């Protein structure tokens, strides 16, 4: 896949990772005590405690990795010459060169076809001669 499509897919991956991270944190976060007037919140149900501590770490690691991947792809962009005009100028140059080479190719082709016709005619004469079908001039 070309690099711009890869970049676009990486942006979409970043978006979905961010979405999943925030959503999962929001869904799984245990309730917290807001004010001392209210009693302690009930302890979370018997969810394995490691999951709740590990998940943010893993998800944020994935997010940071995706962002680094994006930076690497941006660095790999082959954005060499500056500007549209430089590219258009190069296209005009290449078109002129293409035309010139095309004309030379045409010339060579015509000369080669002429020579081929001559050779075929000579070969016909030689074989006629060999088979004694025509008296030689």
């Amino acid at each position, binding site marked *: 896949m*070309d690099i711009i499509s890869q970049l676009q897919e990486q942006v979409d991956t970043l978006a979905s990772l961010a979405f999943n991270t925030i959503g999962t*944190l929001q869904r799984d976060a245990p309730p917290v005590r807001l004010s001392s007037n209210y009693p302690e919140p009930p302890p979370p149900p018997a969810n394995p405690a490691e999951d709740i501590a590990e998940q943010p770490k893993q998800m944020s690691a994935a997010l940071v990795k995706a962002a680094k991947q994006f930076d690497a792809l941006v660095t790999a962009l082959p954005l060499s010459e500056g500007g549209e005009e430089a590219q258009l100028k*190069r296209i005009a140059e290449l078109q002129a060169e293409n035309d010139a080479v095309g004309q030379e190719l045409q010339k*060579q082709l015509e000369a080669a076809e002429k020579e081929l016709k001559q*050779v075929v005619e000579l070969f016909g004469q030689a074989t006629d001669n060999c088979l004694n079908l025509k008296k030689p001039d």
Partner: protein
Amino acid sequence: MAAATYPPPPPYYRLYKDYLQDPKSAPEPPPPVEGTYLCYGGNYTTDDVIPSLEDQGVRQLYPKGPNVDFKKELRSLNRELQLHILELADVLVERPSQYARRVEDISLIFKNLHHLLNSLRPHQARATLIHILELQIQRRKQAVEDIKRRREEAQKLLKEAVGTLEGQ
């Protein structure tokens, strides 16, 4: 049961009655459309440009100007995106009711990112065209070389044949 029939074909077919005998007696096909045209009540344009962000009502975060440094802007937008995600997480902890503004900011950054990437596409198209032209020039030069070589070989063979015939 009454059902609506399809509309009849346009009556222009009568103009082409003598087309086989005289191709010029029938009208020419209409020329291709230029500029804007109306299609099913919608305005379309034949000039393909990417609409700028302001046209879509989205604020543009990277500096405008003739030559935008794409790599730098893409990287700084990436950095800002990370910061905004962190900010969103913080806001959710401390002031959960104010998430909307942060989410809007994040979507703005994403729209800018996609617009920057889309505006790289014309550059990519031109670069592809340059590449194709270079390949074609190389193939044509190769073909010229091949033809020259074959002609020389044929000449050599013919000379050899003449020499052999005269030697007989």
